[in-house]
């Protein structure tokens, strides 16, 4: 079992090396010329105005909030899905109550307008 994850670790390390190989190549062979205008950020030709780091509407946060709660719900679906066949009827009803409670959450977010983009 540990061997499986040894493979995954090697896959990640060697993969990172292979992905950064082209970056090494361009660092070695690419030309260097640094006149200041080149480093201006791109705003379709208009000189940039103000800071890029302005704040944003709270809706971004609401979407990631509802996402976290539903992603956490999926934690409990995976183990149940694996043993659902052997556990029988009772487990199915337990899981159904779990899902119904969380669909209530989705309905609340929907009614409350947390899913509206505007």
């Amino acid at each position, binding site marked *: 079992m540990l061997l499986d994850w040894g493979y995954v670790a090697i896959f990640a390390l060697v993969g990172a090396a292979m992905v950064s190989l082209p970056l090494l190549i361009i660092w070695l062979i690419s030309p260097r010329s640094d006149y200041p205008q080149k480093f201006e950020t791109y705003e379709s030709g208009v000189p940039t105005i103000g800071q890029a780091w302005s704040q944003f509407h*709270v809706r971004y*946060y609401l979407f990631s*909030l509802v996402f*976290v*709660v539903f992603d*956490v719900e999926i*934690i409990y679906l995976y183990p149940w899905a694996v043993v659902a066949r052997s556990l029988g009827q009772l487990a199915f009803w337990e899981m159904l109550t779990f899902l119904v409670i969380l669909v209530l959450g989705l309905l609340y977010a929907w009614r409350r307008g947390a899913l509206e983009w505007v």
Partner: protein
Amino acid sequence: MPGLAHYLVLSALLFALGLFAVVTRRNAVTILMGIELMLNAANINLVAFNKFVAPGAMQGQIFALIVITLAACEAAVGLALVLAAYRTLETVYVDEINLMKW
């Protein structure tokens, strides 16, 4: 072979780092990050005990899953509080949030 003591020492260090972040950071979001580190340290202990002390019942790993769920809920509600505070008080630095009501 790393035994139980190794994992306990490591989680104690991680817990201390998280506690240090919570106690000394001014920005509320960084305090929440410190809390996440402390919860991770507790999770390491739970899973280590599950392997070395009580392997049969899988209680440690179940508890770790519950802790991960509650950490997600805590982060969600905590950051919602930080946003609400930021909206009314225009600041996220906890030492500037010292008025009950004005």
